[in-house]
């Protein structure tokens, strides 16, 4: 069942609009999971399409996170990547969207207006990896304290480098 599902998605690819097809760099199938790597410039177009197209209807954003491939065991196109997990309740299927982000231009378009859930996830990815989400309404730290310097989940951040909070006042807001 799972296998036919993923094949369905793969077979749907040639019928996609041209602008979506050109945005797709690679489609991988692994153990019934589909990963689509897309161009950074077309991120919003593709996600908007997957969300609204009546054949796909990926209406839930399950997860959004960043990756740092600095010390990865196989070479990757860029150092960073942002990964989106979309779920279609209509198809009962998931898809993983991947965008590579270069170290020189750490900017990705925000999708907070497409999926409200993306708001805090994008803040988290900014806080921990330093990836800027273009168009985000409130891109401030969410997990680390306000005086934190750097982005702790980057592979070049020393794993034991602890940063004291000097302020004795609880942080305002979320």
């Amino acid at each position: 069942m799972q296998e036919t599902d993923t094949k369905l998605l793969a077979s749907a690819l040639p019928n996609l609009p041209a602008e979506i097809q050109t945005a797709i760099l690679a489609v991988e199938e692994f153990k019934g999971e589909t990963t689509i790597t897309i161009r950074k410039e077309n991120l919003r177009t593709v996600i908007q399409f997957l969300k609204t197209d009546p054949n796909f209807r990926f209406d839930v954003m399950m997860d959004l996170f960043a990756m740092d491939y600095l010390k990865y065991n196989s070479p990757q196109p860029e150092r960073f990547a942002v990964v989106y997990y979309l779920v279609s309740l209509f198809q009962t299927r998931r898809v993983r969207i991947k965008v590579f982000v270069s170290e020189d231009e750490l900017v990705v378009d925000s999708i907070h207006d497409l999926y409200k859930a993306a708001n805090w996830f994008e803040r988290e990815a900014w806080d921990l990896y330093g990836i800027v989400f273009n168009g985000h309404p409130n891109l401030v730290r969410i997990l680390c304290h306000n005086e934190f310097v750097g982005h702790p989940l980057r592979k070049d951040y020393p794993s034991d480098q602890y940063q004291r909070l000097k302020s004795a006042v609880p942080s305002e807001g979320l």
Partner: protein
Amino acid sequence: MSEHSLTVSSTEADLKNVAFTTRLEDFINWGRKNSLWPLPFGTACCAIEYMATVGSHYDVSRFGAEVVRFSPRQADCLLVLGTVVEKMGPVLKQVYDQMLEPKWVIAVGVCASSGGFYRAYHVMQGIDNIIPVDVYVPGCPPTPEGIIFGMLKLQEKITKGGIVRARDRYKIAR
């Protein structure tokens, strides 16, 4: 009381049946140690162990410490149960400051005591960085017996400690 009993001349032996003498300090501490009102500051699995401690099987009310309060103004024994991250520090400090004297703190589990196995960018390396701690309970998480033992140790400390005044505690804390 009848008129008859009032007129009986009381010898020293009779007096022992109706009264006993003690020092005021000991009497106050006896009351304090047997009616600790805990405030659980639960942030991790230690708080789950504390639930078992309060439950009927382990039954911490045998030691007079079952009136769990969720307002710092009604409690005198702060139990820090779990990992405290640096960002949470000011919150914990505020909760401690809001408690009325006399007050005691038990650091339950290795995270609250020393940061535990979190030696990374975010976890405070022991809550004694910001508030004075009376008893440390080891374990990850400690068993309910361990938490009860910690409470008994605190009772011992209260018995021996004399009446510690607020200004002295602050001197210790600084």
